[in-house]
């Protein structure tokens, strides 16, 4: 007889395998503290060892996992935590007792701060265990061995636990605690492993029992019947078929090809799993936002190589550092500009720090030469044909074959024909192009009507850039927010845009929207939008058309 227990399904899919319970070794009691100062030294050493191990794992991970593990290392090294532990030792607590009290005091204030932070409390429990275990000489498994493909069941999964699992042998994940926004859920989703969290009744499941997990429905079935397994597999098949109904390269209903690409920052692993032809905008500054020093050449090569590996065989357009304005980088000195959006940003930074750009281009070239990804590079904030020529020369010298520029300054669009003599492609950043064309700060919500991507004047600029590209047979893409709007995407294609790059999550809907329209239809919609009085009217005309 099968039994079904319920939790929250956080990552869809079906897993059917034997249960593998993750349990931790119980810790022996700690000895009494004779000298608080000596005791604190050993606690500090244990904290440092745990933090170093976390950072090592962080360096081997990617995307959100890296951030999470780095943040945990930061918690272990927290000076206020150390203060509370020291006070506990001085009050006569044992070391593990003082550690427990210190973590508990922070757990309480975080738990009171609402569900998002409350879920971080489970991580604190894990950190406390790791520090105490290290202190007492209890070995922490670096790698959790999984001999056969299994359903992993645990009270909760801390990021460090997930990092030590051989994920290729994990059929599904079930946790007794944790919530929809906890780390176990985030990680399972990003790795597309079926998962059910907050399943308290899973505590009763025995090691080795056959388990069927439905990550969509949030159900965990113990000893499922053949019929139950078949029904679940059937449900899963219809789910994936529905998603796959439109898949592969983007095209209109009459077969006109439109490249569908993704915008990435640091989340390239999860983005690489999305059905796309590659990356239309790789924002390199997001890899270095926290940096105080200029990242070294070798470090840059390693970072770019990791992204290129994730997109092996596919296209990757790397944008060189877009520092300044709303994205200050600590290693690029900022002067007090009264109008940063019009100041030294993007390619303009290279006027003052030429080696920042030449080093980055060399690092991209070196990483590209060892990768099967089709790497191109483009510069942000280019305003004149001369700047474009200069950038192309530098990039070619670094061994990069395909070189383009962003079209986000109206002056560049007005001279797109001359720019296209030098570059291989244009990529339109609609948000900045709108901001500069309308002289309206895109961050000011009061002016959002002016920076509306449906504004006919913006569409005219896009059309002009696309027409210049068509003249000479060079691609002109859009990588701004407009590209991810399923209603606007057909209009952009009608204006002559050849590729659309957007947040990975938006891609399926845009693909479906294009598959629904012929190229002729797209052109008709773009004429309707171009002929409208304002952004609202343009949108309304396309909705009605």
């Amino acid at each position: 007889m099968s039994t079904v227990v319920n939790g929250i399904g956080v990552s869809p899919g079906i897993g059917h395998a034997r249960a593998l319970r993750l349990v931790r070794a119980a810790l022996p009691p700690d000895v009494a503290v004779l000298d608080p100062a000596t005791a604190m030294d050993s606690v500090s050493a244990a904290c440092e060892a745990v933090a170093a191990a976390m950072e090592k794992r962080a360096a081997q991970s990617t995307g959100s996992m890296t951030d999470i593990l780095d943040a945990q290392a930061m918690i272990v090294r927290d000076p206020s935590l150390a203060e509370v532990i020291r006070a506990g030792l001085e009050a006569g607590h044992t070391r593990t007792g003082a550690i427990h009290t210190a973590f508990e005091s922070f757990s309480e204030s975080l738990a009171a701060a609402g569900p998002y932070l409350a879920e971080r409390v489970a991580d604190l429990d894990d950190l406390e265990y790791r520090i105490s275990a290290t202190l007492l000489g209890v070995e922490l498994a670096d790698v959790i061995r999984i001999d056969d493909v299994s359903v992993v069941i645990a009270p909760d999964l801390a990021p460090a636990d997930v990092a030590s699992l051989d994920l290729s042998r994990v059929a599904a994940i079930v946790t007794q605690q944790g919530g929809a926004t906890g780390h176990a859920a985030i990680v399972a989703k990003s790795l597309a492993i079926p998962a059910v969290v907050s399943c308290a009744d899973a505590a009763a499941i025995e090691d080795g029992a056959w388990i069927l997990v439905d990550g969509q429905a949030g159900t965990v079935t113990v000893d499922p019947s053949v019929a139950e397994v078949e029904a679940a597999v059937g449900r899963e098949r219809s789910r994936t078929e529905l998603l796959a109904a439109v898949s592969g390269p983007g095209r209109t209903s009459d077969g006109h090809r439109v490249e569908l690409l993704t915008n990435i920052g640091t989340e390239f692993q999860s983005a690489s799993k999305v059905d796309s032809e590659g990356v239309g905008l790789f924002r390199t500054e997001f890899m270095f936002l926290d940096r105080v020093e200029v990242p070294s050449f070798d470090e840059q090569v390693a970072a770019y190589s990791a992204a290129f590996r994730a997109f092996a065989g596919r296209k990757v357009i790397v944008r060189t550092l877009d520092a300044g304005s709303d994205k200050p980088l600590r290693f690029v000195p900022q002067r007090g500009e009264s109008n940063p959006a019009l100041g030294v940003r993007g390619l303009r930074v290279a006027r003052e720090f030429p080696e920042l750009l030449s080093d980055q281009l060399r690092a991209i070239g070196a990483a590209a030469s060892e990768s099967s990804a089709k790497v191109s590079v483009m510069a942000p904030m280019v305003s004149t044909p001369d700047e474009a020529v200069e950038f192309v020369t530098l990039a070619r010298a670094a061994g990069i074959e395909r070189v383009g520029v962003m079209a986000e300054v109206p002056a560049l669009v007005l001279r797109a024909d001359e720019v296209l003599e030098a570059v291989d492609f244009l990529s339109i950043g609609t948000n900045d192009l709108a901001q500069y064309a309308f002289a309206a700060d895109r961050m000011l919500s009061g002016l959002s009507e002016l920076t509306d991507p449906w504004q006919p004047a913006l569409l005219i600029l896009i059309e002009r850039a696309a027409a210049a590209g068509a003249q000479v047979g060079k691609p002109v893409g859009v990588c701004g927010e407009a590209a991810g709007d399923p209603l606007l995407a057909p209009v952009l294609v009608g204006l002559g845009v050849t590729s659309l790059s957007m947040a990975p999550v938006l891609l399926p809907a845009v693909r479906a929207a294009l598959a629904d329209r012929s190229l002729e239809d797209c052109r008709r919609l773009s004429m309707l939008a171009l002929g409208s009085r304002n952004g609202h009217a343009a949108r309304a005309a396309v909705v009605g058309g």
Partner: protein
Amino acid sequence: MSVLERRVTVGSAVGLHARPAARLVRAVVAAGVPVTIGKPDAPQVNAASILSVLSLRAECGDQVVLQTPDGSASQALDQLAALVANNLDAETD
């Protein structure tokens, strides 16, 4: 000794949690000056402590006060204030 102070509005859409909080703490540590942070009229906490910063529960749009007892750290405090005011979690183009 004069205490320097900056009052800013939290710009990060998710408040001073997760990545924005971690960025602030890293910046404070890198600045190498003692800095505290707190809501107006509430006790100040160590801005180099991620747990303390998270415990503030500062949301987007909340006012926070940054202080340093180091009278020569005016520029560092300006940079930290700008960091808090910026929406560092947004990826915009």
